[in-house]
């Protein structure tokens, strides 16, 4: 007797739930030091509840944490920053801030896991710059639903959202990053709403999709943005909320 394996897997309906951002607006702004502080002002330890949650097991996912720190310069100067992951320097930088202007450091930690300590240190070359806002959120990138089969037919991104949505302070969005879907590790046209694909073949480098900020751009890096009216001034990403697909067995890997 021969036992046949169906050519198609069952339908997979992957739902992804994202935790709300953690935000804090200090009642009393704190003055930034003029040299790097020994203890960063902003720190978050990644908890399981912070991570995007899936309604089924997935073969691979990479988590990207975004940490925001914001404040205001009274005198024109420069704000310096350092990102640390588990005490190790990941990236450093600086940005110019005009007088009486808000600044926001957008810091992206690529590939974080539960227990990781993510820190952001801020200092200034002038003595009257303050900080008063911090936030933290985690998104998912480079997801591979199943190790085998990798050919998905169809692969429907049936719901696409965007975020994080920050509400404290006087927030504004500076840039919006599209969802980047990949077939054979080749990037398809950018996605900003639900989109159906007849075929997706998932390869190891980029998986099914990448987010823009924190992966395609600014992975383990940061950017400082300024505004006379808004803080935080931040980037958001489009990301999948639901993917409906099924795998095709018996295909030789391209």
């Amino acid at each position: 007797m021969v036992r046949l394996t169906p050519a198609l897997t069952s339908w997979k309906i992957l739902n992804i739930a994202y935790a709300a951002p953690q935000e804090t607006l200090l009642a009393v702004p704190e003055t930034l030091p003029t040299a790097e502080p020994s203890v960063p002002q902003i720190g978050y330890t990644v908890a399981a509840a912070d991570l995007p949650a899936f309604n089924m097991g997935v073969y691979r996912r990479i988590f990207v944490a975004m940490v925001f720190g914001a404040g205001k310069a009274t005198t024109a100067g420069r704000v310096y920053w350092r990102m640390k992951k588990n005490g190790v320097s990941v990236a450093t930088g600086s940005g110019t801030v005009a007088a009486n202007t808000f600044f926001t450091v957008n810091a992206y930690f690529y590939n974080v896991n539960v227990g990781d300590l993510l820190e952001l240190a801020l200092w200034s070359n002038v003595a009257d710059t303050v900080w008063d806002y911090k936030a933290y959120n985690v998104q998912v990138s480079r997801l591979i639903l199943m190790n085998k089969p990798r050919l998905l037919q169809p692969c429907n991104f049936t719901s696409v959202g965007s975020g994080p949505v920050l509400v404290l302070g006087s927030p504004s969005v500076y840039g919006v990053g599209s969802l980047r879907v990949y077939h054979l590790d080749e990037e398809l046209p950018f996605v900003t709403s639900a989109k159906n694909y007849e075929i997706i073949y998932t390869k190891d480098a980029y998986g099914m999709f990448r987010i823009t900020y924190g992966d395609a751009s600014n992975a383990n890096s940061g950017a400082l943005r300024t505004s006379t009216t808004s803080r935080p001034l931040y980037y958001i990403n489009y990301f999948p909320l639901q993917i409906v697909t099924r795998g095709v067995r018996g295909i030789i890997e391209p």
Partner: protein
Amino acid sequence: MKLTLDVGIKKDMDDKEMDVLDRALRRAIPVLFGWSYSPLTGELTLDFGDVDENVMLARIEDYKAKAKAVKVLRLEFMEMVKEW
């Protein structure tokens, strides 16, 4: 617009060394808005804020030389990423 260069050096900097780099970059490239550097990869990203992309494209080799970089890696305009 951001230009990412490989400077060929993976070195963590303290705040004084960052200040030296900051001054050197701003002296060489007065239009610079900000920068970031990764000691893990040796990548230096020059942040020009909102500038004309054609002006930027024409000056990539000049900025590469001024930053003493060994290779141009990426140019980012809004969410578009061009990689070399």
